């Protein structure tokens, strides 16, 4: 299973959600499906996508928030799973694409490569109740549907191949993405 296929499968569902994605390949693949004003691309600060998602979810209880994370990023901020569990935002879906690789920084193996470390088990151990592991596109689609139907915090660990896009680039600057993302949220709030 490839991450790009997973993103393609859920892309239409992201239309009315606030989406925070991690850097590199994941950001680019989402962007390549078509940028939307409700997408924020965290191109650095590895580990903090889920923390941004938590801040959004707690302050915008009427919105659904989807975080697109990766094994390398989550491993840099494992504490985030405990903070998510503690505050349990019902409107947050945390998707972790586990490709067992630091793909965007040269493809070095991550701590999950061997299969010894189980991020889903870590999420459960942190105290998150709804945790899914997806090995196939069918699993992933079902996990996403279930998460959308569950009025509770969900984590989906999707096992994907360590592949990414051939070309990188976006037609806006990083602060511009932040300004427009905020504007989109404030417009939603006032409408």
């Amino acid at each position, binding site marked *: 299973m490839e991450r790009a296929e997973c993103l393609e499968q859920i892309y239409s569902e992201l239309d009315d959600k606030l989406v925070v994605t991690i850097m590199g390949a994941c950001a680019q693949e989402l962007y390549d499906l078509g940028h939307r004003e409700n997408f924020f691309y965290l191109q650095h600060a590895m580990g903090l996508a889920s*923390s941004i998602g938590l801040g959004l979810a707690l302050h915008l209880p009427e919105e659904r928030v989807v975080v697109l994370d990766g094994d390398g990023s989550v491993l840099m901020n494992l504490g985030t799973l405990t903070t998510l569990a503690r505050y349990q935002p019902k409107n947050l879906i945390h998707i972790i694409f586990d490709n067992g690789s630091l793909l965007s920084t040269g493809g070095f193996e991550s701590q999950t490569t061997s299969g010894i470390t189980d991020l889903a088990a870590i999420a459960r151990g942190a105290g998150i109740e709804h945790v899914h592991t997806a090995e196939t596109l069918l699993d992933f689609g079902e996990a996403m549907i279930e998460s959308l139907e569950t009025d509770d915090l969900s984590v989906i660990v999707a096992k994907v191949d360590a592949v990414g896009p051939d070309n990188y680039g976006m037609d806006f600057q990083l602060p511009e993405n932040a300004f427009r993302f905020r504007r989109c949220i404030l417009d939603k709030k006032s409408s």
Partner: protein
Amino acid sequence: MTVSYDNSRLIFEGIKAAGIRSISALPETWLGLLLQRADDDPEVDLIQVAKEEEAIGVAAGAYFAGEPHVLLMQNHGFLAAINGIVSLAQLYGIPLCMLIAVRGHWGEPYPWHTRGGIVTEEVLRSLGIPFEYARDPGKVAKQIREAHTFSESSLSPVALLLTRDLMEED
């Protein structure tokens, strides 16, 4: 020496008077009474993180949501949060109003705080983060309001340093 009950109250009241109802924090001794008040106040959302760098993300989320926010941390927590400050807040132009307890400076009896205390000001300078010291209980509410205003107008991290003079009493 004990943590000042009255000044902790003044700081909390200053945060609320600045229109802030969202606080992220990692507990530390000087901030204890302040966090207790935040936790007990139904008007205030207190989000306690496991490590201070998480709070930079939470603060960014609050900012995107249009919610005035303040971060409470010890200076060692500030040091632990630097990559988030640089590569999220400064990179994207996201304001942070940080109230930082400056341990390990003049009068510090505990050796373990001292190295962090000695480098805090120079690290703030080298990161280009504007800062002020809060020493006078009569001025701290105004300083909090001004720190928050400046962070939002400059789209930058701003630090108000909570000193021993303010946080401790005999």
